[in-house]
Protein backbone atom coordinates (compact mmCIF):
# COMPACT_ATOMS: atom_id res chain seq x y z
CA UNK A 1 0.00 0.00 0.00
CA UNK A 2 2.72 2.48 0.97
CA UNK A 3 4.85 1.56 -2.03
CA UNK A 4 1.87 1.94 -4.36
CA UNK A 5 1.19 5.36 -2.88
CA UNK A 6 4.83 6.30 -3.52
CA UNK A 7 4.51 5.26 -7.17
CA UNK A 8 1.32 7.30 -7.50
CA UNK A 9 3.06 10.30 -5.95
CA UNK A 10 5.92 10.02 -8.46
CA UNK A 11 3.45 10.14 -11.35
CA UNK A 12 1.58 13.06 -9.85
CA UNK A 13 4.77 14.97 -9.05
CA UNK A 14 6.08 14.59 -12.58
CA UNK A 15 2.95 16.35 -13.83
CA UNK A 16 3.53 19.40 -11.60
CA UNK A 17 4.55 22.52 -13.45
CA UNK A 18 5.44 24.78 -10.52
CA UNK A 19 7.08 24.56 -7.10
CA UNK A 20 3.81 25.62 -5.48
CA UNK A 21 2.04 22.84 -7.32
CA UNK A 22 4.66 20.33 -6.23
CA UNK A 23 4.42 21.50 -2.64
CA UNK A 24 0.63 21.08 -2.72
CA UNK A 25 1.00 17.64 -4.29
CA UNK A 26 3.50 16.54 -1.66
CA UNK A 27 1.29 17.87 1.11
CA UNK A 28 -1.64 15.87 -0.24
CA UNK A 29 0.34 12.61 -0.29
CA UNK A 30 2.02 13.15 3.07
CA UNK A 31 -1.06 14.16 5.07
CA UNK A 32 -2.29 10.55 5.52
CA UNK A 33 0.97 9.85 7.37
CA UNK A 34 0.31 12.71 9.82
CA UNK A 35 2.85 15.07 8.27
CA UNK A 36 1.93 18.67 9.10
CA UNK A 37 5.11 20.45 7.96
CA UNK A 38 8.04 19.62 5.68
CA UNK A 39 11.08 21.09 3.98
CA UNK A 40 13.02 20.19 0.84
CA UNK A 41 16.65 21.23 0.98
CA UNK A 42 18.98 20.63 -1.97
CA UNK A 43 22.71 21.01 -2.12
CA UNK A 44 23.27 22.66 -5.46
CA UNK A 45 26.53 23.07 -7.31
CA UNK A 46 27.61 26.47 -8.53
CA UNK A 47 28.42 25.92 -12.22
CA UNK A 48 31.17 28.57 -12.13
CA UNK A 49 33.31 27.47 -9.22
CA UNK A 50 31.97 24.01 -8.40
CA UNK A 51 31.14 24.99 -4.83
CA UNK A 52 28.01 23.43 -3.33
CA UNK A 53 25.60 25.47 -1.26
CA UNK A 54 22.21 24.76 0.33
CA UNK A 55 19.14 25.85 -1.55
CA UNK A 56 15.75 25.58 0.17
CA UNK A 57 13.45 24.45 -2.61
CA UNK A 58 10.28 24.12 -0.62
CA UNK A 59 9.51 25.03 2.94
CA UNK A 60 6.10 24.22 4.29
CA UNK A 61 6.93 24.98 7.89
CA UNK A 62 5.75 27.69 10.28
CA UNK A 63 6.51 31.05 8.67
CA UNK A 64 8.24 32.37 11.79
CA UNK A 65 10.68 29.48 11.71
CA UNK A 66 11.24 29.79 7.98
CA UNK A 67 12.19 33.43 8.31
CA UNK A 68 14.44 32.93 11.32
CA UNK A 69 16.24 29.94 9.78
CA UNK A 70 17.06 31.88 6.62
CA UNK A 71 17.96 35.20 8.26
CA UNK A 72 20.30 33.66 10.80
CA UNK A 73 21.92 31.17 8.40
CA UNK A 74 21.08 28.20 10.60
CA UNK A 75 21.82 25.61 7.92
CA UNK A 76 25.50 25.13 8.82
CA UNK A 77 24.74 24.76 12.54
CA UNK A 78 21.78 22.49 12.08
CA UNK A 79 22.41 19.09 13.70
CA UNK A 80 19.89 17.66 11.27
CA UNK A 81 22.09 18.69 8.35
CA UNK A 82 25.14 17.07 9.93
CA UNK A 83 23.12 13.92 10.53
CA UNK A 84 21.91 13.84 6.93
CA UNK A 85 25.47 14.10 5.57
CA UNK A 86 26.54 11.07 7.63
CA UNK A 87 23.62 8.80 6.87
CA UNK A 88 22.04 7.25 3.82
CA UNK A 89 19.06 5.86 5.72
CA UNK A 90 16.24 7.96 7.13
CA UNK A 91 16.52 8.97 10.78
CA UNK A 92 14.51 10.71 13.49
CA UNK A 93 15.49 13.28 16.09
CA UNK A 94 15.76 10.43 18.56
CA UNK A 95 18.59 8.96 16.50
CA UNK A 96 20.71 12.09 16.93
CA UNK A 97 23.10 12.53 19.84
CA UNK A 98 21.26 15.54 21.25
CA UNK A 99 23.09 15.43 24.60
CA UNK A 100 26.28 16.53 22.83
CA UNK A 101 24.67 19.62 21.35
CA UNK A 102 26.16 22.94 22.35
CA UNK A 103 26.13 26.56 21.28
CA UNK A 104 24.33 27.47 18.10
CA UNK A 105 23.51 23.84 17.26
CA UNK A 106 21.63 23.50 20.53
CA UNK A 107 19.83 26.80 19.92
CA UNK A 108 18.80 25.86 16.39
CA UNK A 109 17.42 22.51 17.41
CA UNK A 110 15.40 23.63 20.39
CA UNK A 111 14.11 26.82 18.77
CA UNK A 112 12.90 24.84 15.78
CA UNK A 113 11.15 22.25 17.87
CA UNK A 114 9.41 24.90 19.96
CA UNK A 115 8.30 27.15 17.12
CA UNK A 116 7.06 24.36 14.85
CA UNK A 117 5.28 22.67 17.79
CA UNK A 118 5.69 19.15 16.45
CA UNK A 119 6.19 15.84 18.22
CA UNK A 120 7.75 13.60 15.60
CA UNK A 121 10.25 13.99 12.78
CA UNK A 122 11.78 12.02 9.96
CA UNK A 123 14.79 13.23 8.03
CA UNK A 124 15.40 11.56 4.68
CA UNK A 125 18.88 12.21 3.28
CA UNK A 126 19.40 11.96 -0.44
CA UNK A 127 22.70 11.24 -2.08
CA UNK A 128 23.64 11.21 -5.71
CA UNK A 129 26.84 10.26 -7.52
CA UNK A 130 28.48 13.43 -6.20
CA UNK A 131 27.72 12.59 -2.59
CA UNK A 132 25.33 14.29 -0.20
CA UNK A 133 22.69 16.04 -2.31
CA UNK A 134 20.21 17.34 0.23
CA UNK A 135 17.42 16.12 2.42
CA UNK A 136 13.71 16.17 3.05
CA UNK A 137 12.49 16.80 6.59
CA UNK A 138 9.05 15.66 7.60
CA UNK A 139 7.41 16.84 10.80
CA UNK A 140 4.54 15.06 12.48
CA UNK A 141 1.96 16.55 14.79
CA UNK A 142 1.98 13.30 16.71
CA UNK A 143 4.49 10.46 16.68
CA UNK A 144 6.73 9.46 13.79
CA UNK A 145 5.36 6.54 11.73
CA UNK A 146 6.98 3.10 12.15
CA UNK A 147 10.16 2.17 10.23
CA UNK A 148 8.39 0.02 7.63
CA UNK A 149 6.81 3.22 6.27
CA UNK A 150 10.13 5.06 6.01
CA UNK A 151 11.21 3.22 2.88
CA UNK A 152 8.29 4.43 0.79
CA UNK A 153 8.67 7.92 2.21
CA UNK A 154 12.29 7.83 1.04
CA UNK A 155 11.21 7.12 -2.52
CA UNK A 156 8.79 10.03 -2.38
CA UNK A 157 11.52 12.26 -0.95
CA UNK A 158 14.04 11.45 -3.67
CA UNK A 159 11.63 12.10 -6.52
CA UNK A 160 10.14 15.19 -4.85
CA UNK A 161 13.59 16.69 -4.42
CA UNK A 162 14.60 15.95 -8.01
CA UNK A 163 11.38 17.41 -9.38
CA UNK A 164 11.82 20.46 -7.16
CA UNK A 165 15.36 20.93 -8.49
CA UNK A 166 14.05 20.76 -12.04
CA UNK A 167 11.32 23.30 -11.36
CA UNK A 168 13.81 25.55 -9.57
CA UNK A 169 16.16 25.35 -12.55
CA UNK A 170 19.00 23.34 -11.01
CA UNK A 171 21.03 20.90 -13.10
CA UNK A 172 20.00 17.25 -12.64
CA UNK A 173 22.52 14.67 -11.53
CA UNK A 174 23.86 12.63 -14.39
CA UNK A 175 25.97 10.30 -12.22
CA UNK A 176 29.13 11.10 -14.09
CA UNK A 177 27.80 10.31 -17.54
CA UNK A 178 29.29 13.54 -18.76
CA UNK A 179 31.49 14.30 -15.74
CA UNK A 180 33.52 11.12 -15.49
CA UNK A 181 35.05 10.36 -12.11
CA UNK A 182 36.94 7.23 -11.09
CA UNK A 183 36.14 7.60 -7.36
CA UNK A 184 33.27 6.11 -5.41
CA UNK A 185 30.93 8.41 -3.49
CA UNK A 186 32.53 7.52 -0.16
CA UNK A 187 36.00 8.16 -1.54
CA UNK A 188 34.94 11.57 -2.78
CA UNK A 189 33.38 12.42 0.56
CA UNK A 190 36.51 11.39 2.48
CA UNK A 191 38.71 13.30 0.06
CA UNK A 192 36.59 16.44 0.32
CA UNK A 193 36.82 16.46 4.13
CA UNK A 194 40.55 15.75 3.97
CA UNK A 195 40.96 18.69 1.62
CA UNK A 196 39.20 20.83 4.23
CA UNK A 197 41.89 19.91 6.75
CA UNK A 198 40.10 17.15 8.65
CA UNK A 199 42.15 14.32 10.16
CA UNK A 200 41.39 10.68 9.46
CA UNK A 201 39.79 10.43 12.87
CA UNK A 202 37.58 13.49 12.24
CA UNK A 203 36.62 12.15 8.82
CA UNK A 204 35.63 8.88 10.46
CA UNK A 205 33.42 10.69 12.96
CA UNK A 206 31.74 12.78 10.27
CA UNK A 207 31.08 9.85 7.95
CA UNK A 208 30.24 7.38 10.69
CA UNK A 209 33.15 5.04 9.87
CA UNK A 210 36.32 4.03 11.69
CA UNK A 211 39.55 6.00 11.44
CA UNK A 212 41.12 2.95 9.78
CA UNK A 213 38.40 2.84 7.12
CA UNK A 214 38.79 6.56 6.45
CA UNK A 215 42.52 5.98 5.99
CA UNK A 216 41.77 3.06 3.66
CA UNK A 217 39.47 5.20 1.53
CA UNK A 218 42.11 7.90 1.16
CA UNK A 219 44.80 5.38 0.24
CA UNK A 220 42.48 3.96 -2.40
CA UNK A 221 41.92 7.49 -3.73
CA UNK A 222 45.65 8.02 -4.21
CA UNK A 223 45.93 4.75 -6.13
CA UNK A 224 42.84 5.45 -8.22
CA UNK A 225 44.10 8.86 -9.23
CA UNK A 226 47.66 7.66 -9.76
CA UNK A 227 49.27 10.24 -7.46
CA UNK A 228 51.86 10.02 -4.69
CA UNK A 229 50.31 12.20 -1.99
CA UNK A 230 46.94 13.10 -0.60
CA UNK A 231 47.53 16.74 -1.43
CA UNK A 232 48.03 15.81 -5.07
CA UNK A 233 44.85 13.76 -4.97
CA UNK A 234 42.89 16.70 -3.58
CA UNK A 235 44.32 19.08 -6.15
CA UNK A 236 43.51 16.72 -9.00
CA UNK A 237 39.97 16.15 -7.76
CA UNK A 238 39.25 19.85 -7.24
CA UNK A 239 40.62 20.69 -10.66
CA UNK A 240 38.45 17.99 -12.27
CA UNK A 241 35.39 19.18 -10.38
CA UNK A 242 34.95 15.89 -8.54
CA UNK A 243 35.03 17.60 -5.15
CA UNK A 244 34.65 21.14 -3.98
CA UNK A 245 36.02 22.75 -0.80
Amino acid sequence: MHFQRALEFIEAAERCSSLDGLQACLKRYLEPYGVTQFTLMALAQNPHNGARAPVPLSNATASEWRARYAERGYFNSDVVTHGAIRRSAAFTWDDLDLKQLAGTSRTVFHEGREIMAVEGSLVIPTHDANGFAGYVSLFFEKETPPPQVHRSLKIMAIYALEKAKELYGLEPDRAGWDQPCPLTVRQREALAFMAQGKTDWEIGVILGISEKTANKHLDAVRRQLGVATRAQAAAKAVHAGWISI
Partner: protein
Amino acid sequence: MIRLVTPENRTAYAHQLEEMHRQRWVCFVEQRGWSALGALQKTPGYEEDEFDDERAVYLLALSQQGNVLGSMRLRPADDKTIVGDICQGAIDAKTKAGFGASDWEITRTMRAPAHTGPDGQLRLQLTTAACEFALDRGISRYVCCVDTQMLPAMRALNREHHTLLGEPIPYAEGEMIAVALRPDQQWLERTYALAGFTGRVLEAPPRAAAFAAA
Protein backbone atom coordinates in the same frame (compact mmCIF):
# COMPACT_ATOMS: atom_id res chain seq x y z
CA MET B 1 33.54 -1.81 -29.86
CA ILE B 2 32.00 -3.74 -26.97
CA ARG B 3 32.49 -7.49 -27.26
CA LEU B 4 29.59 -9.84 -26.78
CA VAL B 5 30.50 -13.07 -24.99
CA THR B 6 27.89 -15.80 -25.30
CA PRO B 7 28.03 -19.49 -24.41
CA GLU B 8 28.96 -20.19 -28.04
CA ASN B 9 32.07 -18.01 -28.21
CA ARG B 10 33.12 -18.15 -24.56
CA THR B 11 36.27 -20.17 -25.21
CA ALA B 12 37.59 -17.41 -27.46
CA TYR B 13 37.41 -15.02 -24.50
CA ALA B 14 38.62 -17.39 -21.79
CA HIS B 15 41.52 -15.12 -20.83
CA GLN B 16 39.31 -12.02 -20.62
CA LEU B 17 36.65 -13.82 -18.59
CA GLU B 18 39.30 -14.99 -16.14
CA GLU B 19 40.49 -11.39 -15.86
CA MET B 20 36.91 -10.20 -15.40
CA HIS B 21 36.28 -12.58 -12.48
CA ARG B 22 39.46 -11.45 -10.74
CA GLN B 23 38.52 -7.82 -11.30
CA ARG B 24 35.08 -8.51 -9.83
CA TRP B 25 36.71 -9.73 -6.63
CA VAL B 26 38.83 -6.58 -6.33
CA CYS B 27 35.95 -4.27 -7.25
CA PHE B 28 33.08 -5.74 -5.25
CA VAL B 29 34.73 -7.60 -2.37
CA GLU B 30 37.78 -5.48 -1.69
CA GLN B 31 36.93 -1.98 -2.86
CA ARG B 32 33.20 -1.90 -2.25
CA GLY B 33 33.25 -4.05 0.85
CA TRP B 34 30.76 -6.78 -0.14
CA SER B 35 32.21 -9.12 2.44
CA ALA B 36 29.23 -11.49 2.37
CA LEU B 37 29.86 -12.04 -1.32
CA GLY B 38 33.53 -12.68 -0.61
CA ALA B 39 32.69 -15.30 1.99
CA LEU B 40 30.74 -17.30 -0.59
CA GLN B 41 33.62 -17.65 -3.02
CA LYS B 42 35.41 -20.97 -3.51
CA THR B 43 38.63 -19.26 -4.54
CA PRO B 44 39.72 -16.01 -2.88
CA GLY B 45 40.58 -13.44 -5.48
CA TYR B 46 38.09 -14.83 -8.02
CA GLU B 47 34.45 -13.80 -7.86
CA GLU B 48 31.74 -15.89 -9.49
CA ASP B 49 28.30 -17.09 -8.49
CA GLU B 50 25.45 -19.33 -9.62
CA PHE B 51 24.41 -16.76 -12.22
CA ASP B 52 27.70 -17.19 -14.10
CA ASP B 53 26.24 -20.21 -15.85
CA GLU B 54 25.48 -21.39 -19.37
CA ARG B 55 22.74 -18.76 -19.77
CA ALA B 56 24.90 -15.77 -18.87
CA VAL B 57 26.05 -13.31 -21.50
CA TYR B 58 28.80 -10.77 -20.90
CA LEU B 59 29.52 -7.40 -22.41
CA LEU B 60 33.24 -6.62 -22.32
CA ALA B 61 34.96 -3.34 -23.02
CA LEU B 62 38.52 -4.18 -24.08
CA SER B 63 41.64 -2.12 -24.53
CA GLN B 64 43.63 -2.28 -27.74
CA GLN B 65 45.86 -4.84 -26.01
CA GLY B 66 42.82 -6.99 -25.20
CA ASN B 67 42.64 -6.18 -21.48
CA VAL B 68 39.28 -5.80 -19.79
CA LEU B 69 38.39 -2.17 -19.11
CA GLY B 70 34.82 -2.84 -17.99
CA SER B 71 32.17 -5.50 -18.02
CA MET B 72 28.50 -6.21 -17.49
CA ARG B 73 26.62 -9.48 -17.04
CA LEU B 74 23.25 -10.08 -18.67
CA ARG B 75 21.09 -13.12 -18.05
CA PRO B 76 17.50 -14.17 -18.73
CA ALA B 77 15.27 -13.49 -15.74
CA ASP B 78 12.69 -16.20 -16.28
CA ASP B 79 14.22 -18.83 -13.98
CA LYS B 80 16.11 -17.07 -11.21
CA THR B 81 17.39 -13.59 -10.52
CA ILE B 82 19.56 -11.79 -8.03
CA VAL B 83 16.86 -9.17 -7.52
CA GLY B 84 14.21 -11.80 -6.78
CA ASP B 85 16.12 -14.68 -5.20
CA ILE B 86 19.17 -13.15 -3.50
CA CYS B 87 18.19 -9.61 -2.49
CA GLN B 88 15.62 -10.41 0.16
CA GLY B 89 12.77 -7.93 0.21
CA ALA B 90 13.75 -6.11 -2.99
CA ILE B 91 10.60 -7.22 -4.81
CA ASP B 92 7.45 -9.06 -3.84
CA ALA B 93 6.40 -12.53 -4.99
CA LYS B 94 3.94 -11.21 -7.57
CA THR B 95 6.60 -9.08 -9.28
CA LYS B 96 9.02 -11.99 -9.27
CA ALA B 97 6.43 -14.30 -10.78
CA GLY B 98 5.88 -11.79 -13.56
CA PHE B 99 9.39 -12.17 -15.03
CA GLY B 100 9.02 -13.78 -18.43
CA ALA B 101 10.93 -14.85 -21.50
CA SER B 102 11.59 -11.29 -22.66
CA ASP B 103 12.94 -10.07 -19.31
CA TRP B 104 16.67 -10.12 -18.61
CA GLU B 105 18.69 -9.08 -15.59
CA ILE B 106 21.70 -6.74 -15.55
CA THR B 107 24.26 -7.43 -12.81
CA ARG B 108 27.94 -6.97 -11.96
CA THR B 109 28.40 -3.79 -13.97
CA MET B 110 32.00 -2.89 -13.32
CA ARG B 111 34.90 -0.70 -14.32
CA ALA B 112 38.29 -2.42 -14.12
CA PRO B 113 39.84 -1.53 -10.73
CA ALA B 114 43.16 -0.57 -12.28
CA HIS B 115 41.53 1.79 -14.76
CA THR B 116 42.19 5.26 -13.42
CA GLY B 117 40.88 7.23 -16.34
CA PRO B 118 37.44 8.72 -16.86
CA ASP B 119 34.67 6.15 -16.75
CA GLY B 120 31.67 8.15 -17.95
CA GLN B 121 32.21 7.11 -21.56
CA LEU B 122 32.80 3.51 -20.50
CA ARG B 123 29.52 3.33 -18.63
CA LEU B 124 27.71 4.89 -21.57
CA GLN B 125 29.29 2.33 -23.90
CA LEU B 126 28.18 -0.58 -21.75
CA THR B 127 24.68 0.81 -21.27
CA THR B 128 24.31 1.52 -24.97
CA ALA B 129 25.60 -1.94 -25.83
CA ALA B 130 23.04 -3.46 -23.46
CA CYS B 131 20.30 -1.50 -25.22
CA GLU B 132 21.52 -2.65 -28.64
CA PHE B 133 21.61 -6.23 -27.37
CA ALA B 134 18.05 -5.87 -26.13
CA LEU B 135 16.82 -4.64 -29.51
CA ASP B 136 18.76 -7.39 -31.32
CA ARG B 137 17.35 -10.06 -29.04
CA GLY B 138 13.79 -8.81 -28.52
CA ILE B 139 14.31 -8.12 -24.82
CA SER B 140 11.48 -5.91 -23.62
CA ARG B 141 12.68 -5.26 -20.08
CA TYR B 142 15.85 -5.29 -18.01
CA VAL B 143 15.67 -5.64 -14.23
CA CYS B 144 18.47 -4.69 -11.89
CA CYS B 145 19.27 -3.48 -8.41
CA VAL B 146 20.85 -0.06 -8.15
CA ASP B 147 22.02 2.03 -5.25
CA THR B 148 19.36 4.60 -4.37
CA GLN B 149 22.02 7.21 -5.07
CA MET B 150 21.61 6.35 -8.75
CA LEU B 151 17.90 7.24 -8.78
CA PRO B 152 18.41 10.96 -9.48
CA ALA B 153 20.57 10.15 -12.50
CA MET B 154 18.20 7.41 -13.60
CA ARG B 155 15.36 9.91 -13.50
CA ALA B 156 17.37 12.48 -15.42
CA LEU B 157 18.38 10.08 -18.18
CA ASN B 158 15.63 7.48 -18.31
CA ARG B 159 12.52 9.12 -16.94
CA GLU B 160 10.02 7.36 -19.20
CA HIS B 161 12.04 4.18 -19.40
CA HIS B 162 12.46 3.22 -15.76
CA THR B 163 10.06 1.88 -13.15
CA LEU B 164 10.67 1.12 -9.49
CA LEU B 165 9.84 -2.47 -8.61
CA GLY B 166 10.07 -2.35 -4.82
CA GLU B 167 11.07 -0.34 -1.80
CA PRO B 168 14.73 0.33 -0.91
CA ILE B 169 16.53 -2.36 1.09
CA PRO B 170 19.84 -2.14 2.97
CA TYR B 171 23.06 -3.60 1.56
CA ALA B 172 26.80 -3.32 2.17
CA GLU B 173 27.11 0.20 0.76
CA GLY B 174 23.84 1.75 1.90
CA GLU B 175 20.44 1.16 0.32
CA MET B 176 19.54 -0.32 -3.03
CA ILE B 177 16.34 -0.59 -5.00
CA ALA B 178 15.01 -2.85 -7.75
CA VAL B 179 14.37 -1.10 -11.04
CA ALA B 180 13.00 -2.13 -14.43
CA LEU B 181 14.33 -0.53 -17.58
CA ARG B 182 12.55 -0.63 -20.94
CA PRO B 183 15.07 -0.43 -23.78
CA ASP B 184 13.75 0.91 -27.04
CA GLN B 185 14.88 2.88 -30.07
CA GLN B 186 14.17 6.20 -28.38
CA TRP B 187 16.38 5.32 -25.41
CA LEU B 188 19.11 4.14 -27.77
CA GLU B 189 19.04 7.33 -29.80
CA ARG B 190 19.14 9.42 -26.64
CA THR B 191 22.27 7.68 -25.39
CA TYR B 192 23.91 7.91 -28.82
CA ALA B 193 23.29 11.67 -28.73
CA LEU B 194 24.48 12.04 -25.12
CA ALA B 195 27.66 10.08 -25.69
CA GLY B 196 28.42 11.30 -29.18
CA PHE B 197 28.33 7.79 -30.64
CA THR B 198 27.99 7.83 -34.40
CA GLY B 199 27.14 4.16 -34.77
CA ARG B 200 26.72 0.82 -33.13
CA VAL B 201 28.95 0.13 -30.10
CA LEU B 202 28.20 -3.57 -29.68
CA GLU B 203 29.79 -5.98 -32.11
CA ALA B 204 27.35 -7.56 -34.53
CA PRO B 205 25.29 -10.41 -33.05
CA PRO B 206 26.21 -14.00 -33.79
CA ARG B 207 24.09 -15.93 -36.29
CA ALA B 208 20.50 -16.33 -35.10
CA ALA B 209 20.69 -20.15 -34.97
CA ALA B 210 23.75 -20.17 -32.73
CA PHE B 211 22.34 -17.44 -30.54
CA ALA B 212 19.00 -19.13 -29.99
CA ALA B 213 20.70 -21.79 -27.88
CA ALA B 214 21.62 -19.21 -25.18
